[in-house]
């Protein structure tokens, strides 16, 4: 039985110009305008109509879905009050466990930023095809960011948007956690904050790894907690590497606050003993052991015969 796509391919092709022309052999085709990847043009997704569609998607689809799947407990929003009064653009920098992190944060970030927000998304993942590019740009307000190499164009585009008054959501780890522990923060968020002179709000997400961790296909509902930290403003004379370390430290302190309590976390922060996001420097089994057992249902998986 042929697949539907194969059956579709077998249908007679409409003649040119009803269908796209083929290129004769020996002719060098024109460089095509980027339809996907790091150079994908997302300007259309910030036009009024696309913004209305995105707001509808966020409020009518993402919010109920997040409420059902993640049951989020949002904390620390009071730390943003002064910033909200200014109303200027902000960079939200969060740890990253799951695909659910983005909808969770988009529905958690308060006004005035929620509907004037773009998401730094991996060009090699979210912008791999034309369809995913369009969907990411429309539904998430995503902008492609090169994570495999230093790309001036990605940075220029993000900086231009921030300067236009758009806020940014970025996951400085550059990808979802492979094992439940955090990864070192990259310098992108810090660089943009220094370049554009905007504050960075550290955000810690807890629990999304239990719902839809990397490699998992179907989500399993669980509770999550989103904690917003106090905005970080770059100090005079700092560089992006040091500022990135400061952001990572702030997110680690928020993680500590979630695991223990605010007071304990503050004391450890001052003592310089905040547990790192990346977990213990130990063999893999011990790192996994230290995470505990987040998913009891895994035990109920049906035994399967090994492939012969």
């Amino acid at each position, binding site marked *: 039985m042929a697949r539907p796509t194969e059956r579709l391919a077998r249908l007679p092709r409409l003649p040119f*110009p*009803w269908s*796209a022309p083929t290129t004769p052999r020996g002719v060098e085709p024109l460089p095509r305008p980027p339809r996907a990847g790091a150079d994908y043009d997302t300007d259309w997704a910030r036009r009024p109509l696309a913004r209305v569609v995105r707001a509808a998607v966020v409020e009518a689809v993402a919010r109920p879905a997040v409420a059902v799947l993640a049951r989020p407990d949002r904390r620390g929003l009071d730390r943003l009050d002064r910033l909200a009064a200014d109303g200027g653009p902000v960079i939200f920098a969060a740890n990253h466990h799951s695909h659910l992190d983005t909808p969770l944060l988009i529905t958690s970030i308060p006004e005035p930023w929620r509907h004037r927000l773009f998401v730094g998304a991996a060009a090699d993942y979210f912008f791999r095809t034309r369809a995913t590019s369009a969907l990411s740009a429309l539904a998430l307000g995503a902008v492609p960011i090169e994570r495999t190499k230093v790309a001036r164009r990605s940075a220029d585009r993000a900086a231009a948007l921030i300067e236009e008054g758009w806020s940014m959501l970025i996951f400085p780890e550059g990808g979802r956690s492979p094992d439940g522990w955090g990864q070192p923060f990259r310098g992108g968020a810090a660089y943009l904050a220094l370049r554009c002179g905007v504050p960075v709000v550290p955000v810690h997400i807890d629990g999304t790894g239990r719902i839809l961790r990397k490699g998992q296909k179907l989500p399993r509902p669980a509770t999550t907690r989103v904690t917003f930290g106090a905005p970080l403003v770059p100090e005079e004379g700092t560089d992006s590497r040091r500022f990135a370390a400061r952001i990572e430290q702030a997110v680690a302190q928020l993680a500590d606050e979630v695991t223990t309590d605010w007071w304990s976390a503050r004391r450890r922060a001052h003592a310089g003993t905040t547990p790192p996001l990346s977990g213990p420097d130990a063999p893999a089994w011990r790192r996994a052991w230290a995470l505990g057992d987040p998913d009891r249902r895994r035990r109920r998986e049906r035994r399967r015969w090994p492939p012969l």
Partner: protein
Amino acid sequence: MPRPGFVLDVDRSTPPILFHHGEGFRLEKLPPDRSRVVYPAEPLEPLEDPEGAIRHALENPVGDSPPLRALLRPGMKLTIAFDDVSLPLPPMRRPDVRQRVIEAVLDLAAEAGVDDVHIIAALALHRRMTEAELRHAVGDRVYDAFAPHGLLYNHDAEDPDNLAFLGTTPHGEEVEINKRAAESDLLVYVNINLVSMDGGHKSTATGLASYRSLRHHHNVRTMRHSTSFMDRHSSELHSSNWRMGKVIRDAGVKIFQIETTLNNDTFGATGPLSVLQKREWEWTARDRAAFLAMKAGLDRLPLPARRRIFHSWRAPYGLTSVQAGEVEAVHEITTENVYRQQLVEVEGQTDILTMGLPYICPYNVNSIMNPILVMCLGLGYFFNMYRGRPLVREGGVVIMSHPTTWEFHPVHHPSYIDFFEQVLAETTDPVEIEARYEKQFAEDEWYRHLYRTSYAYHGVHPFYMWYWGCHGLAHAGKVIVVGGDRRAVRRLGFTPASTLQDALEMAEDVVGRDATITHLHNPPLVMADVK
């Protein structure tokens, strides 16, 4: 960086090729592996500062000529002649390059205190230009300053009081040109060199000449020995004009020639017709949608409405060069600039040459492309767009695509109607036509009256159109018109065909099976340099 023109070898991946078809289009699939398509180069970058380039050219003439400023003095008689409505094609967007040049010349004349200035449309035996056409060419400022005082007017090749006989060439060719131009202290000729045939001595020796003078090179013998008339060095038409140019010079007529070249940005990079300027496999979804919408709309419109739409198009041509000074030196540079844009190297001749003829030729601007002009455009102009050897081999087949409607503009082309109804009904042989009928039409008082007072082409003009194609007629073994009015096509002596496939099958009778095919993808203009 614009891409150069090239020759595409058609294979199974090649999409159907665009053929112009009068006020419409056809998409034709050419047989793979034995067909090729000659594509024009992309438009050259235009000069950034056209006014500055014009001023520079006037101050730094080429050849044995002082700057224009040095030639102007108070009390002198200055005549400015310019190319008529037949150039460029389609008419260019305002400001027309002639306006820019004439204004620059007049600025210098005013500065030098020249009072006696006449401006003449050098139209030879073409129809007179209307006020709107003159305004478009020279601009409102120049028109309003000169026309109301009778100082801006059309050349009249049948006004015996205003023609001056200057002498005879060693070949016995009489040279008679506009008297005002001949008797001026300086004649400034403002040209547009759209194709390499234009310009040089042909500007004055043809544009400002009378029938008495023109008949020496606008004849069957000259045209058959012009191989092609787009290549001056192989063109008897040009040799004759160059001989006449020498007579004009020896008679003491001082000419300051200003020649300009345009890129081939005929349909624009954006806009409704931009798809016509793109290579078919590069048509985007938007291009294809625009083409389909355009075609669907045009197919539903009556012919007069389609004609009005097409003739309202103004091409966004850009100026690529301007040079001024002594005629021959100027023209050498001009020709190189035309070739730079239009010439495409083609390896060898072909058995079958196909061409899609558009809605316009030099003689139906704001008018109707009648069957005689179809013949002239196909076998005259397109066939002659070569250097070296014709694109089609001797005895090969020429296939033209055009509706070829049996329709004539009664005001512009009155003698064409009689030529088509009387002369072509008798014979299509150019030699016989020339011998039996030319004199009668050329000296007909009614045609002469219409030429001088109305907006009619001269009585002899349809003959010249037929001569223009006589080299192609003699060279080709068969001429087939696709999609044309069958009666009109047969009257021309050609073979009608409903589709290109039918035409190719008919061509097999002449050139055999598996004959090679070359399509000239024109317009935008392209000229084949056949090796």
